[in-house]
């Protein structure tokens, strides 16, 4: 079961009042998460009744830029641009680097000075780590892992749309 359930500190997109709640634990450098990004985007376009939450689960030992990418998304969130940054990171997954984070921040017209400061802010590291720990608690074993209405989805994420539709 999802622990803790969706709270106000989560990043939510889709229909805020949606009756189906999907939570993804993801890593911006994980290729399967990159693939799942397309699946989720299609799902949100197809279904108007889904509330979607992204939580960080960076596998830092395997993926060099996973942690920094998560922090970049959180830094963008401080300027209300979490989802645009989330999307941009997946769209540029092959090119992740420190330079890219700044470039994307620029494209999203963020206050760069503030973005750079926030990238160094330890409280953002703590936030990402809290997400990771909640993933461990919830029984996340790898990425991406999805929860549908609080329950871990053990099937293939490529079938997510069909599963949610039924």
């Amino acid at each position: 079961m999802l622990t803790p359930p969706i709270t106000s500190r989560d990043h939510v997109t889709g229909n805020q009042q949606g009756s189906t709640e999907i939570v993804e634990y993801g890593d911006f450098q994980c290729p399967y998460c990159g693939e799942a990004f397309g699946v989720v985007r299609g799902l949100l376009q197809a279904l108007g009744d889904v509330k979607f939450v992204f939580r960080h689960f960076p596998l830092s030992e395997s993926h060099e830029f996973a942690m920094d990418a998560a922090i970049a998304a959180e830094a963008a969130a401080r300027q209300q641009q979490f989802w645009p940054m989330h999307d941009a990171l997946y769209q540029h997954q092959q090119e992740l680097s420190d330079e890219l984070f700044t470039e994307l921040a620029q494209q999203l017209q963020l206050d760069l000075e503030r973005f750079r400061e926030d990238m160094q802010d330890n409280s953002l590291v703590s936030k990402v780590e809290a997400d990771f720990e909640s993933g461990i608690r919830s029984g996340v074993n790898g990425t991406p892992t999805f929860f549908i209405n609080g329950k871990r989805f053990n099937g293939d994420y490529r079938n997510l749309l069909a599963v949610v539709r039924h």
Partner: protein
Amino acid sequence: MLQKGDKAPDFTLAASPDKTVSLSELRGKNVILAFYPADWSPVCTDQMALYNETLRFFERHNAVLLGISVDGKWCHQAFAKDRNLHFDLLADFEPKGAVSRQYGVYKDGESQRALFVIDDQGVIQWSYLSPIGENPGADGILQALETVNATA
């Protein structure tokens, strides 16, 4: 399979070509034993990668993680290096599976996918046998460690 309340059998196994680890050396710490079938196999690789990321949470509970399989020390060394693992993988290689047998988790030539949490006095406080093809994750381990610390 040994259960909660059983005394954890002591053992000494090679952790690398030039290092051995004995369970009794770790008295005073909680120990997590993660038996698994084989280096490099997909589920085991994911499981060990997950624990590698979770080490800092185990350490908060004064716990040391040891992976154990029947693979040899050179195989372990190559696997650990390739995956950047920061914990010891022990070789239950000769006599094959001797320690896995002591813990009751040896079958068909391999260690089964089994977890044990042993307290600082060397007593098993939690054990779990996972289906062979299923990554058991780390949530059960963390819950067990919390219980151990609460009663200690």
